[in-house]
């Protein structure tokens, strides 16, 4: 395992050496931050405007219509928006957990067992990272249609459980975090192999698996193509596809734009909240390859 120094610790160490602030560097960072926050600030301001203010008042000037917009959104199609948000949470939550578990046991096996075909299996799974989703989308739809699974929750959930990248991360993490000696000790004590994984390996891999979970959660939350292709009934849509259909109707009914705007704002809040709460578990050093197995 690597020692992870906190940003502040390093910053203090280095600030001790030289104290002058680089205003050029700081300004560039601030500009970058402003650029990234601009659309978010806009959607916050725009969500408070009623339909006509949206096109007449200055962009960032707040309005007074937030609650009105919210109740309009909730009454659209019997509150279908909340169904979409709920669906997204199911797809991303259940998909993320299952993906982390499958990645976890696969990564653990690839790191902790020696068996014929280990490298071949790992390389084939890993090559999946390079397969462009474009090759998969159309045939996945046709194959699922043959077994009658299109336009069901399964059509969106099942294809996103397998994550080559997640398996890769879990393997690296298991190699670094689960010592061979601990596994062997448990084995000598007579514990079964699955029990060793569930009671010894899995708990040690939790930080890595939280990273895999977050990664896949975001990937599913952000995935538009798959549900867009697979689903046709709007009560199964995730929020991304739902808002997209609203936006398309907005071209003829501009009043729907206010729904799209407040809907967009509400849909990004949970993800930002999740990030802020799970931030400390988000092991970015895994993703950048800084933890070596």
């Amino acid at each position, binding site marked *: 395992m690597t020692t992870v120094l906190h940003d502040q610790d390093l910053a203090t160490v280095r600030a001790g050496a030289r104290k002058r602030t*680089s205003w050029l560097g700081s300004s560039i960072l601030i500009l970058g931050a402003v650029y990234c926050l601009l659309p978010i600030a806009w959607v916050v301001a725009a969500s408070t405007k009623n339909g006509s203010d949206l096109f007449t008042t200055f962009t960032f000037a707040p309005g007074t219509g937030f609650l009105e917009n919210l109740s309009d959104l909730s009454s659209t199609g019997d509150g279908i928006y909340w169904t979409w948000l709920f669906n997204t949470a199911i797809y991303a939550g259940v998909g993320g957990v299952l993906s982390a578990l499958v990645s976890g046991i696969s990564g653990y096996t690839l790191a902790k067992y020696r068996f014929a075909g280990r490298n071949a299996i790992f390389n084939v799974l890993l090559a999946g990272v390079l397969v462009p989703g474009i090759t998969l989308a159309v045939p996945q739809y046709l194959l699922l249609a043959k077994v009658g699974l299109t336009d069901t929750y399964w059509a969106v959930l099942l294809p996103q459980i397998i994550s080559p990248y997640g398996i890769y991360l879990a393997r690296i993490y298991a190699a670094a975090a689960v010592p061979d000696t601990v596994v062997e000790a448990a084995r000598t004590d007579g514990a079964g192999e699955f029990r060793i994984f569930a009671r010894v390996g899995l708990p040690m891999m939790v930080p890595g698996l939280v990273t895999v979970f977050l990664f896949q959660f975001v990937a599913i939350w952000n995935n538009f193509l798959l549900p867009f292709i697979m689903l046709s009934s709007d009560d199964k849509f995730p929020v991304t596809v739902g808002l997209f259909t609203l936006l398309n109707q907005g071209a003829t009914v501009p009043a729907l734009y206010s729904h799209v705007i407040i809907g967009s704002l509400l849909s990004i809040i949970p993800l930002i909240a999740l990030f802020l709460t799970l931030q400390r578990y988000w092991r970015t050093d895994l993703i950048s390859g800084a933890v070596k197995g």
Partner: protein
Amino acid sequence: MSATATTGRKRKGTAPRGVPYLFLAPAIILFTLFLLLPIGYAIYLSFRQIKVSGLGLGKGSRTEIWAGLDNYASALGDPELLGSALRVLAYGLVLLPIMLGLALLFALLLDAPRVRFGRFAKLAIFLPYAVPGVIASMLWGFLYLPAVSPFNDVIGALGLPEPNMLGGGSVFFAIVNIAVWGGVGFNMIVLFTSLRAVPGEIYESASIDGASDLQIALRIKIPLLMPSLIMTTVFSLIATLQVFTEPLTIRSLTNSISSTWTPLMKVYRDAFSQNDIYSAAASSVVIAVVTLVLSFGFLRLVSRQAFGGENR
């Protein structure tokens, strides 16, 4: 597998032979069902076509037959597919340097000793990662709409002619901007984390030797970041060639984006609007092959230059 791999390592209490395969079964089954099988099926379909006999009415008048390379010939000769492919290549050539260049710049600044506001900027720049592509395109799309846009308000107040960012010439850059916005933060974090893994003493000794922060960044940090830069480039390249969500969303707000603006949009249209799954399959196989050739080509090119032919 060699015998040393199975017997050479310490294996006091041995696990039953079948266990690893059993543990890997869920991954292998899902991988087969949702990756291998669809790829195989796409390749199979790309060699098939529908033969219509008579007027094409009634049962049995439409039969699926072997097409040989017909679908590939028409995909490769299709000006729409070629046009969209060239557009997306140009898109990648503009997007990747800007996005990864900014990600590198921000990562180096976050790691620089005398730069302030790092924690705030890191969080703010990473925030767009949590915004789905559809939502990001909607937010920017509204910011581009002349009636809503703050940029147009400012430019109009200065008495200059107001641009239409969703017009034919500029919509390309409008979409590049959405992708830069959405991608810069994640890549910045990956690069920044790699920098953090480098022991600080390396920089300390360089700065004692009189190297400036800029020199340290250019001569030490960027070379150290090469493997991470290559990895982020390859992943960004693969994602870039599949661009779909952003132009499709912006298309709802402007008519300057055609239904075949990117290769994936064309595949989608062929398969689902025109019900021609065979040519859609051939197009997607072609695009997949081009993607793989480009990513492996890039990897070969840079690994020769960056590592002197030595594999990492």
